[in-house]
């Protein structure tokens, strides 16, 4: 019995060592399909604009990226005064900040090229998605923050 083990163990070892010489290769091509089909099926204006302008950093689940981009989901600031959120979308944000005890430090570029209506749709969308509940925002609200008396439509 013990002698048999002496033969089996080295045999298993040699087989494993042989496998180690041919580990999995990684290819450049990628066959992943669009994974957020369900998410994209929601066709509200705010959702479509979020996908185009916000999703890459803040992610499908609105949770952002740890260390880089803060979450919108479950972030009290998003549910706070709408003017604060409109300002961030219009003028961007820089410098370190802490949300729910995690640190974030990547610049958000200004999105002033979007119209007042587009920004209103986006802000309303993020204030009422992923469990967030807060008041909707109108294009007039955005116009007042952008430049009093000069809405971009």
């Amino acid at each position, binding site marked *: *019995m*013990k*002698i048999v083990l*002496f033969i089996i163990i080295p045999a298993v070892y040699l087989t*494993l*060592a042989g*496998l*180690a*010489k041919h*580990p*999995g*290769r*990684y290819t*450049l091509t*990628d066959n*992943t*399909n*669009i*994974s*957020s089909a369900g*998410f*994209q099926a929601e066709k509200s204006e705010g959702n479509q604009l979020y*996908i*185009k*302008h916000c*999703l*890459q*950093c803040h*992610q*499908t*689940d609105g*949770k*952002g*990226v*740890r*260390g*880089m*981009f803060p979450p919108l989901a479950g972030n009290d600031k998003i549910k706070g005064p709408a003017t604060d959120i409109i300002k961030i979308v219009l003028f961007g944000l*820089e*410098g370190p900040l802490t949300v729910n005890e995690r*640190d974030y*430090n*990547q*610049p958000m*570029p*200004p999105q002033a*090229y979007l119209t007042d209506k587009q920004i209103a749709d986006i802000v309303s969308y993020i204030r009422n998605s992923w469990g967030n509940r807060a008041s909707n925002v109108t294009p007039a609200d955005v116009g007042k923050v952008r430049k009093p008396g000069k809405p971009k439509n």
Partner: protein
Amino acid sequence: MKTIKSFSVPLILITAVISALCMRSESGSLSIPDDNGGLTLPAGFSALVVADKLGSGRHIVVNSNGDIYLALRSLKNGKGIVALRDSNGNGQADIIRYFGNTLTTGIDISNGFLYYSNFEEVLRVPLSGGELVPTGEPVVIATGFEKQNQHQDKTFALDGAGNIYVNVGAPSNACQQIDRTPDSKGIDPCPQLERHAGIWKFKDDVPGQDQVKNGHHYASGIRNSIAIAWNNSNNKLYVVQHGRDQLFQFYPDLYSEQQGAELPAEEFFMVEDGDFFGWPYCYYDQFKKQKVLAPEYGGDSKAIGRCDKAKGPIMAFPGHLAPNDLLFYTGKMFPERYRNGAFIAFHGSWNRSPLDQKGYFVAFVPFENGLPSGEMEIFADGFAGVKVIKSPNDAVYRPMGLAQGPDGSIYVSDSEEGRIWRIIYNSKK
């Protein structure tokens, strides 16, 4: 029956002695968990968890006595470095001390000094008399870098011959007039290349060297090379670049969503004095196998333009995988084919959505004569803990830093929970 039994007793003893000898020579008394701390590894390799919950782990280094130093990108209890010692040799750190007052990213040891960096400078402090926490006064070695709000990490490599090479990342995505904004053209020539997006060389022992006054602008056109290492086998500098973002988001007429997720390649560079690698004017298309003109500079996803003058990569990896550390293996523990080859920690993508995110593994590239001699292989995987990663936050752990221990073990740090793994060869319990 009796005779067999009496025969088997010495056999058991011999077996025990042989296994004890094997254990001692290969793994000491390391206690290795059956699940390898959650990692999947090639046959013959195993892993143990050295420590956990250390903070936001960044780069890592192991001293010749086995002491471990982990940089922290966010302060923990006001400290930016954690020192760890395994005093009983079971593999787990049992002495853990926090020190240093700034957040830390690059970290290395050379000639009895601990070198470490933050967003604005590189410092060093003597590590003497076997002390775990340095008691000497830190001295700034390289400084005078401009403040920047992205790609800030001043990671570095030491050549062991008196020089230190510091990565200064680009303060933008693609040097647009307005950063990361649709339809904003690239500034031409890009003024950011004067102080950023390259490698600066300094003396490794002269205090207070200024980037402009004392630094030598060693190489240019590198967007950000957090992964930077000196290869002692041929005495050359290597980096792995974080390629640009947002080709599809800003140029949906030129790129499909899938192309935006896959392009451009993360490029592996061999860096020599005076090299120019193309950023922001060019990026590398791994399918066309050439540098292509960036759309901010008039590119149409095919035109090459001025990019025939940019130095190419020695290898191209899939886009957005975020190579965050590079290690040339010089140990004797791993099989011969790993010697002088490159381990790369891919922190994993954030910007492939809505496609699934990729990376989150440690890769190996075999080398011969200073160049890759085979395809990239996934060496250590399973960090994320899930099969499909839709968002980076789905990943439980993300591989960040790499270090080689005195016995040839490889240490991997994690950025999310602050775990450190030690990977060893041929010592499965």
